[in-house]
C-alpha cells in the first residue's frame, strides 16, 4: 500500500544489486537509523544500559550465529563459548597490554574466537546435523571449564570474574551509558553492513548452497571443508566481538558462568524466533527475546500485583520461551523476518491479494 514502486527502474547492475533496491525500504532504513541516533535524548539512561545496549550486543551475537546456522546451515549450540573467547581475549589484551587500542583488542578478541571456531568446526567435514551440535556443545563445556580452571585467563582473581577497565578510544572516555550506546551502535551497524555484503556476495551464496543442497554445491566446485570453516570463522568472529562488547560495554564484569549453555540457547532462540538465515531476523529475534521477559514481568505485575514471586516469574519465562520456540518452529519456521516479508509483499501488491 505504501510501496509505490512505479517509476523505480534500474539502469545498472550496481543499482539492481543494491542492498535496498526499493526506495521505500531505503527511506525506512534511514528513518530507523535516525531514531537509533536520537533515541538517547528521549529515554532514561537505565533504558540505554539495561535494554538498548544489550539489545545491540545480542543482535550482533544472533547475527553471528545466524551466519553459521541460518546461512551455512550448521547447527551450533556453542555461541556462548565463542563469545567467552572473544571477551576473555579482549580483556586480557586490554589489561595486560594497556597500550593496545581498545578497538584493536576487540578485533583481536574476534579473531581469536574465529580461530577457536574454525578449530571446533573441523569435525564438521565428517559429521553433520546434531552430531555437529554436539561438538559445539562440547565447546561450551570445554570453554567454561578453561575459563574457570585456568587462572591465567582471569588473572587469578579469587572470584574468577573479570571486570573490565574503563574504556578509552582515541582519548574519548566511554564511561556514560550514552557514549557506550553510541559505541555499540556504530560497531553493530558496521558489522551488520559487512555481514549483509558478504551474504549477498560469493560467500553468502556458497553458504546457502551447502545449506540447501550440499552435493550439488560440491559438484559446482564449492569446497566443503573450506566453506564450512569460513562459516565457522566469520560466525565466531562476530560472536567474539559480541562477547567483548558483552563484557566491556554491557555487564562490565563477567565470569565464565555468564557464558553457559543457556546463553547459547538464548541466542539460538533469537534466530529461531527472529528468522533463520536473515540479517533482519537477528535483530528482530534479539529484540523479542530480550523484551519478552520485561513485558512478561510488567504483565504479571499488572495482573497479579506485586504479590507475584520472582521464582515463579522465572519459571513462567522458561515456559513462554519454550512455547514460543515450539510455536515458531511449527507455525513459521522462518520466524518474524518471514512474517515481515509476507506483510511487505502484501503491501507491495495491495489492493490485490496476490
Amino acid at each position, binding site marked *: *500500500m505504501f510501496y509505490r514502486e512505479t517509476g523505480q527502474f534500474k539502469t545498472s547492475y550496481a543499482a539492481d544489486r543494491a542492498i535496498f533496491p526499493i526506495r521505500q525500504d531505503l527511506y525506512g532504513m534511514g528513518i530507523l537509523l535516525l531514531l537509533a541516533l536520537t533515541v538517547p535524548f528521549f529515554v532514561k539512561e537505565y533504558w540505554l544500559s539495561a535494554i538498548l545496549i544489550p539489545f545491540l550486543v545480542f543482535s550482533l551475537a544472533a547475527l553471528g550465529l545466524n551466519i553459521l546456522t541460518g546461512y551455512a546451515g550448521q547447527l551450533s549450540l556453542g555461541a556462548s563459548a565463542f563469545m567467552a573467547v572473544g571477551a576473555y581475549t579482549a580483556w586480557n589484551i586490554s589489561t595486560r597490554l594497556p597500550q593496545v587500542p581498545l578497538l584493536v583488542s576487540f578485533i583481536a578478541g574476534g579473531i581469536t574466537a574465529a580461530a577457536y571456531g574454525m578449530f571446533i568446526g573441523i569435525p564438521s567435514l565428517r559429521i553433520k546435523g546434531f552430531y555437529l551440535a554436539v561438538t559445539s556443545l562440547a565447546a561450551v563445556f570445554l570453554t567454561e571449564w578453561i575459563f574457570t580452571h585456568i587462572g591465567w585467563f582471569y588473572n587469578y582473581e579469587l572470584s574468577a570474574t573479570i571486570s573490565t577497565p574503563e574504556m578509552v578510544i582515541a582519548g574519548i572516555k566511554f564511561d556514560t551509558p550514552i557514549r557506550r550506546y553510541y559505541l555499540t551502535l556504530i560497531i553493530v551497524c558496521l558489522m551488520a553492513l559487512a555481514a549483509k555484503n558478504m551474504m549477498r556476495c560469493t560467500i553468502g551464496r556458497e553458504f546457502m548452497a551447502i545449506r540447501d543442497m550440499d552435493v550439488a554445491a560440491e559438484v559446482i566446485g564449492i569446497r566443503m571443508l573450506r566453506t564450512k570453516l569460513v562459516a565457522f570463522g566469520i560466525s565466531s568472529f562476530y560472536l567474539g566481538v559480541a562477547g567483548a562488547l558483552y563484557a566491556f560495554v554491557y555487564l562490565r564484569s563477567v565470569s565464565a558462568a555468564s557464558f553457559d549453555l543457556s546463553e547459547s540457547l538464548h541466542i539460538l532462540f533469537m534466530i529461531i524466533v527472529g528468522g533463520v538465515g536473515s540479517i533482519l531476523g537477528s535483530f528482530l529475534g534479539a529484540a523479542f527475546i530480550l523484551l519478552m521477559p520485561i513485558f512478561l514481568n510488567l504483565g504479571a505485575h499488572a495482573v497479579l500485583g506485586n504479590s507475584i514471586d520472582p521464582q515463579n516469574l522465572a519459571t513462567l519465562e522458561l515456559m513462554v520461551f519454550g512455547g514460543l520456540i515450539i510455536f515458531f518452529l511449527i507455525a513459521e519456521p522462518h520466524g518474524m523476518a518471514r512474517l515481515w516479508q509476507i506483510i511487505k509483499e502484501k503491501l507491495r501488491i495491495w489492493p490485490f491479494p496476490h
Partner: protein
Amino acid sequence: MSEASNPAGTRYYDTMDTLPKILLYNAHERKDRTCMREKDLGIWQTWTWSEMAKEIKILACALAAKGFKRNDKLGIIGNNRARLYWSMAAAQCLGGIPVPLYQDSTANEIIGILIDSDVSFIVVEDQEQVDKILEIWDKCPLIRHVVYEDPRGMFQYNQPFLNDFESMMALGRRYDREHPDFFLQEVDKGSGEDVGVFLFTSGTTGKPKGVVMTYNNIIITARNTIELEKLSQKDELIAYLPMAWVGDYLFSFAQSYVAGFCVNCPENTETIEADRREIGPSYYFGPPPIWENLLTRIMIRMEDAFWVQKKVFHFFMGVAKKTGARILNKESVSLLARWLYAVGDILIYAPLKNALGISNVRLAYTAGEAIGPDLFDFYRSLGINIKQLYGQTEAFVFVCIQPDGEIYSDTVGIPAPEVEVKITKKGEVMYRSPGVFHSYYKNPESTADTKTPDGWVYTGDAGFFDARGHLKIIDRIKDVGKFSSGELFAPKYIENKLKFFPHIKEVVAFGNDRDFATAFICIDMNAVGDWAERLNLSYSGYASLAGHEAVYQLIRESIEKMNKDLALDEKLRHSQVKRFLLLHKELDADDGELTRTRKVRRKFINEKYPVLIEALYSNKDICRFEAKVKFEDGRTGIIAANLKIWKAALFGSDAVREEK
C-alpha cells in the same frame, strides 16, 4: 565545435524541417538527456540524445557502405527495439525511406508490401524474421541486404546477404573514418518536402496501401499535438505497439524527436506489464481491448481477495464512480465527497494505479474503435486523464481529440489544431490538415478517390457534430442507411451502444427504408445466466433462457435506457429501437452469421431470417420460426421456436409521434 564535445557532429539548423536535423539538434541541445531505454540483460540500457545520434550516424554510414542510396527503401520488421528505431532514423539521414512492417504478419502477407514499396534493404529483429525473408527471397529480387539485430541461432546461416548488426556497426565506423563529412552532407540534403516514411494501412478493407508521409506532414502534426497536450522532454513513453502502426511512429518516433521525451522498449512481450510498472510512463496509448482486459484482470485478481479487502475495494470504487470523473473534469464536488475520494486515493486508487504501473500517466489515449462508457469512466474515475481520439493513417493519426475538461464517452471530441473537419451531405466525415498524407505509394487512382485536389480527405466514416460541437462517429458510411422518413439510420451505432450493456452479446439492428428501427438481440449467456441464478429462474438452455419473460424485461430496460439517450440527440432520436426479439440461439460464425472476427454479416442474416424481420415490422407479438443449425458433429438439423416480439418505449418527440 569539436568532435569530442558532440560526437555526432551536431549543428544548428535554422529550419528543422526533417527528423534527422531535429535529431542532430537534440544531440546538441539535449546532449545528456536520456532519449531511449531498452530493457535488455535485466537492466534498462540507456542512451542519451548524443549517444543515440552517434549510433544512428554509424548505422547510416554502414548502410551507405553497403550501397544504400537516397530514396532507397528500408524495410523494418520486429518488436519495438532501440536498434530498429535507429534503423528508421539512419535510413532517413541518408534520404532513404523507412518502411516498418507488422512483425506478426506471415511471409505471404509481407511479400506484397515489400514488392509494392520497392524495399531494397531490410533490418529485422531475429532469426524468426530472417526465416520469413528467406522463405520469400526469390520473389523479391529488389532486396539486396538483410540485417539482423539478434544473432541468437543465426550461427547456422551463411547466406552472403545476411549481415549481423555488430559487424554492420564495425563497417559503419570504418566508413565514417574514411568519409568524415559524408553523414552531415547527407543530412543537409534533406528538406521538409522529402518523403519521411511509408506507413501501410492495416488492409482490413482490401489490400494494404502504402501511405506516403512527408517530413512536413510528420513534424507539423507532431508539433501541434505536443503543444496541445503540453508534452515535454520530461515525459516517459513505453513503445509496445507494432512499429508498423502509424500511432507508434507518431508517438514513439516523431513526437519523441520533436518534444525530446524518452521512449522505453520493453524486454519482450511477456514482460510488458512488469516493464510498464518499472518505467511508469507519463504518456500512454492503448486501444480499447487493452484497457478492457486490464480491467477484467483487476476484477479477477480482486475476486479471491479477503472479504474485508473486497468490501473496501468495491466501496471506494463506488465512491470513485460517483465523484472521480467529476473531480477530473473540474466540476464542483461536495467537500465530503472530495474527502472520501482522498481517502479512497490513499487506500485504493493510488495503490491500484501503482500496481498497474499507471500512477504517473498524465495523458492516455484510446482510439481505433468505440470504447464502452463504463470502461472509459472506470479509468477516468481513478483520476487517469484518458481521452478518446479519432484518427487515421492518412491523417497521420490526429483528426479529433477530446479537449481536457470536455470528456464524453460517446464523442471523439473536437478537431485537432489546424485540422478542418466537415460533413458531406451523405453524412461522411471529411478533414483537411497539415498531416494529410502525400499520396498512396504507386497508387494514383485510390489516392484520387480518397483525397480531393484541394486536400480534403474522405474518411469513409459517417458522423456529425453534436450540440456541444463534438464529433460523433456513428458508422462506416457504406453501412449507414435511411429511414423511409429520410432520417439517417446507423445500425452499427445502435448495435455498439446496446452491446455495451453487460447482458447483451450480439445485436443486429434493422431499419433501412423502414419507418422505425428494430433489433435482434442475442443475450450474453454467462451474464444473463448468473443474473438468472441470482433470481433463481429455472431454465434449460440458451433458448429457454432467451424466451424468459423476465429476461425480455431485463433487455427491454437496457433498450429503453438507450432510447432515452438517443432521444436527446436530434440526429439520432429516430434510431430508437421500437420492437425487438431475443434470438433463440447465439449468432455463430459456423452458421455463417458472423465473420471469423465476429462482425455481423447483415446480408446473410437478411436472407436467413426474413420471417423474423417481417414479424418485427408486423404487429404480431409472437412468431414461429424454424432454423437450420449445424451441430458440433457436423450434422445439420432443424430447431423450431416461438419467439416473442416485444415493444420498447420511445422517448422525446418520437414518442409523441407514436401517439398520432
